[in-house]
């Protein structure tokens, strides 16, 4: 074996020890495992621990309450309920075990064959799975019970077989994903056969998923098994079964309703335990997968001391941002991604925020609209729009700002509009909300006006289109129209041209420039592209790792950069470097 193939096996060992450690941190999962183990052991140890035979009757003492001889009392024929419960669990749990074993074996085999080999195997297996999923399994199970003389194990085997189609589908799709992963490529290149690759490298990746599905299915199987017992199918009276005990109790529901609780409770506890094990294992899996990504080093914790915030926003500036920090909650504690930055945007100015990806520029932009993901928050400093504070304010304040005072144009026009509604429908909704227009015709007229103002030809036609029917450039114009509907004082444009063709890019920049002049609107241009900054910005700041490296007018930045990082950026953009003669 070559080293590339050895690597994952070695790292597998390391994760196994930490699985035990993580297990200890999930008391619910542990408790559920304990419940399943204790009940299972007790059920199979019934001959040793049951007070008496499950069939021994005592007609003189029916429906007796708990006593030393009968810890859970007796049923209508004076039979000991605890003994019946213990013995009755055997067909249930054995049936579940059979169903789960078939479910896992068949589902796993089908899923891996279809997902890993693809091609002919997939073409045969997938339609079979579709049909299996559509067959009403209960009918087949009933037929099997009739054929095999009420043999519950045969029925559970068939249940596992039909349910395995579900597992096979899940396994198939994750198999396709794993297949693309690098280490399998490495194994294939090193000349391992498909069987070996599957058993050594694909299976371990699916193990977690399989365990989750198995425990969830165990709960379903127990429900079906006891349900059949309840219908009087499978285990025949007087032999005890959990479902049969519920049926017995239902006969006397009028006189002794509490009798339902004992067998029902055991079934319920077992099913909940199976469910909890499934959920717990799923969380463990998710933890394991999240680990490598979240282990990113760096990033200071939020600063302990809040800087003095005595100064309110400068009313002459359009936007003032002061000592402003943003942090995200991660598994390893808070991670600061914007670290005490300060800047101001003047009315009618185009202000650039320049940086590489991960520098915190987009986070800064979104935080000004209160649109950070749930895990992110402004942790220090503040932002003002004119004299009005817009950071750390309640959501209802932000609702008056978004669209009305500040508009947003985002990076990917193709996903910036709701694919389920026409452009016109979305534009009209926004117009109705943020502009003064009232009534259908007025709203529509305003929407058309907006589309004309972003230089979209044939606005009536565009209104009728769904987003997928328009080009990227047209969509970006429509998105800008959306942002302009409330006549905002500030437009935040987050990489508005990055996803577009070069020819379309300059058109969008021209549009933004003319809009700024017509509306005397401030624009924050978030970009990684110095060419865009040179083209359209008046002033700009350069960000790196959440901090401001330097800021000034565009001339200052390009002709007299103070920081080596800025110089490096300029040098790495040949067009700019040439045109300024650097």
């Amino acid at each position, binding site marked *: 074996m070559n080293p590339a193939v050895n690597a994952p096996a070695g790292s597998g060992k390391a994760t196994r020890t930490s699985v035990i450690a993580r297990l200890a941190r999930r008391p619910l999962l542990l408790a559920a495992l304990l419940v399943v183990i204790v009940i299972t052991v007790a059920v199979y140890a019934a001959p040793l621990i049951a007070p008496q035979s499950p069939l021994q009757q005592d007609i003189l003492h029916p429906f007796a309450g708990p006593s030393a001889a009968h810890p859970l009392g007796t049923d209508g024929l004076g039979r000991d309920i605890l003994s019946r419960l213990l013995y009755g669990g055997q067909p249930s749990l054995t049936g579940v075990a059979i169903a789960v074993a078939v479910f896992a074996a068949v589902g796993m085999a089908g899923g891996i064959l279809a997902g890993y080999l693809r091609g002919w195997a997939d073409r045969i297996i997938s*339609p079979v799975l579709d*049909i299996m999923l*559509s*067959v*009403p*399994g209960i*009918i*087949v199970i*009933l*037929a*099997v*019970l*009739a*054929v095999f003389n009420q043999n519950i194990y045969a029925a559970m085997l068939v249940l596992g077989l039909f349910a395995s189609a579900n597992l096979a589908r899940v396994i198939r799709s994750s198999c396709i994903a794993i297949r693309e992963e690098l280490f399998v490529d490495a194994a294939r290149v090193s000349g391992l056969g498909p069987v070996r690759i599957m058993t050594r490298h694909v299976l371990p990746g699916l193990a977690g998923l399989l365990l989750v599905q198995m425990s969830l299915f165990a*709960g379903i199987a*127990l*429900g079906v098994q*006891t*349900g059949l017992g*309840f*219908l009087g*199918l499978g285990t025949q009276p007087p032999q005890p079964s959990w479902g049969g005990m*519920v049926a017995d109790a239902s006969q006397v529901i*009028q006189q002794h*309703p509490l009798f*339902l609780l004992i067998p*029902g409770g055991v*079934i*319920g506890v077992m*099913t*909940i335990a199976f*469910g909890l094990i499934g*959920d717990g294992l799923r969380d463990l899996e998710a933890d394991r997968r999240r680990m490598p990504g979240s282990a990113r080093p760096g990033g200071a914790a939020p600063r302990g001391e809040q800087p003095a915030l005595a100064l309110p926003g400068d009313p002459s500036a359009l936007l003032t941002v002061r000592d402003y920090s943003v942090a995200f909650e991660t598994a390893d504690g808070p991670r600061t991604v914007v670290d005490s930055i300060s800047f101001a945007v003047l009315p009618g100015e185009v202000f650039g925020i320049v940086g590489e990806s991960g520098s915190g520029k987009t986070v800064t932009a*979104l935080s000004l*609209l209160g*649109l950070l*993901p749930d895990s992110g928050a402004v942790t220090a400093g503040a932002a003002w729009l004119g004299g009005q504070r817009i950071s750390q304010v309640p959501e209802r304040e932000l*609702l008056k700002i*978004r*669209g009305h005072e500040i*508009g*947003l144009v*985002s990076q*990917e026009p193709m*996903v*910036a*509009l*709701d*694919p*389920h*509604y026409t452009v016109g429908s979305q534009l009209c*909704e*926004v117009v109705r909300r*943020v502009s003064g227009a009232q009534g259908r015709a007025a709203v529509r007229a305003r929407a058309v006006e907006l589309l004309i103002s972003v230089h979209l030809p044939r606005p009536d036609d565009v209104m009728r289109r*769904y987003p*997928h*029917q328009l080009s990227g450039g047209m969509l970006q114009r429509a998105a800008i129209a*959306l*942002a302009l*509907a409330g006549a905002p004082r500030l437009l935040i444009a987050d990489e508005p041209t990055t996803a577009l063709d070069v020819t379309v890019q300059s058109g969008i920049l021209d549009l933004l420039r003319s809009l700024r002049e017509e509306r005397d609107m401030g624009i924050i241009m978030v970009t990684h592209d110095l060419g865009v900054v040179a083209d359209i910005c008046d002033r700009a700041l350069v960000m790196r790792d959440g901090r401001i490296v330097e800021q000034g007018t565009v001339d200052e930045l390009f002709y007299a950069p103070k920081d080596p990082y800025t110089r490096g950026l300029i040098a790495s953009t040949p067009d700019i470097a040439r045109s300024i003669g650097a």
Partner: protein
Amino acid sequence: MLRIITRRLLLSVPLVLVVSGITFVLESLVPGDPARSLLGVNATPQQYTALRDALHLNEPVIQQYWLYLENVFRGNLGTSIFTDQPVSQVVTSRLPVTLSLVIGATVVAAVVGTLLGVYSATRGRLSRRVVDVLSLVGNALPGFWVALALSAIFAVNLGWFPATGYTSFTQSPQAWLSSLVLPVVALAIGGVALIAKVTRDAMLATLQLDYIRTLRASGVSPRSVIWRHALRNSSLALVTTIGLTMISFLAGAVIIENVFDLPGLGNIVVTATNEHDIPVVQGIALTFAVIVIVVNLLVDIAYGLLNPKVRSS
């Protein structure tokens, strides 16, 4: 759109064949001999042979199956071995009961599950936890047990609804509704949990999408963002789940109908299984398969209506 429907209908042919084939082969393996059990012990050998011929029991299974399919195409599902009632009559008289139950439970589960799911996706952690617990318990308690518990509390103790039995809609709409409340609730509970979970996951994923951010940034109201835009996108996953839930309710109905003694298909199919009444089991299996096909077809159509890309292509 039309292509999708055609494809689905073509796929349903093998499904019907598989379902009827499986049940037919299985039922023909049943150890009991219907002719013998019909005639009793005192029949003469001549009577026995005559009946076996009449029931085509001497022919190979595959030929019996072909004969059966031919009859099905003519709308003849055979007659019950035990009651001599035509199977088509058994099915049509009982279908309304099962459909009332299954459709009612699907509507309840879809509405309640969606509301719970949206609520838990958009309001803090506590309500998320509540839905988790609800869905765990809803999934965990076996349907027949929930049904019995409901019956014990609301029918036996409180006397609000009848404990068993069914009144048809044409007899008395009020009594019909009242006889369905408990069965529908009992059947719906498991589905509520699943639908709530799927809705929540889909909503949480959708709320991360760029266009949701665009809409929020443009000043669209939070209510519209959630109910008009985010739920619309989540509705694709939701419709699939509702379809699967409805199919699973068919199996659930077999148990629930027996608990509440509703004269539906699920009730008779258990009896017929115990009596080896092949034509009845066959007819009901076929009916279930057709319901599954119709549900899947409706899901496909809903998919097309919800997704403008499919609709316009």
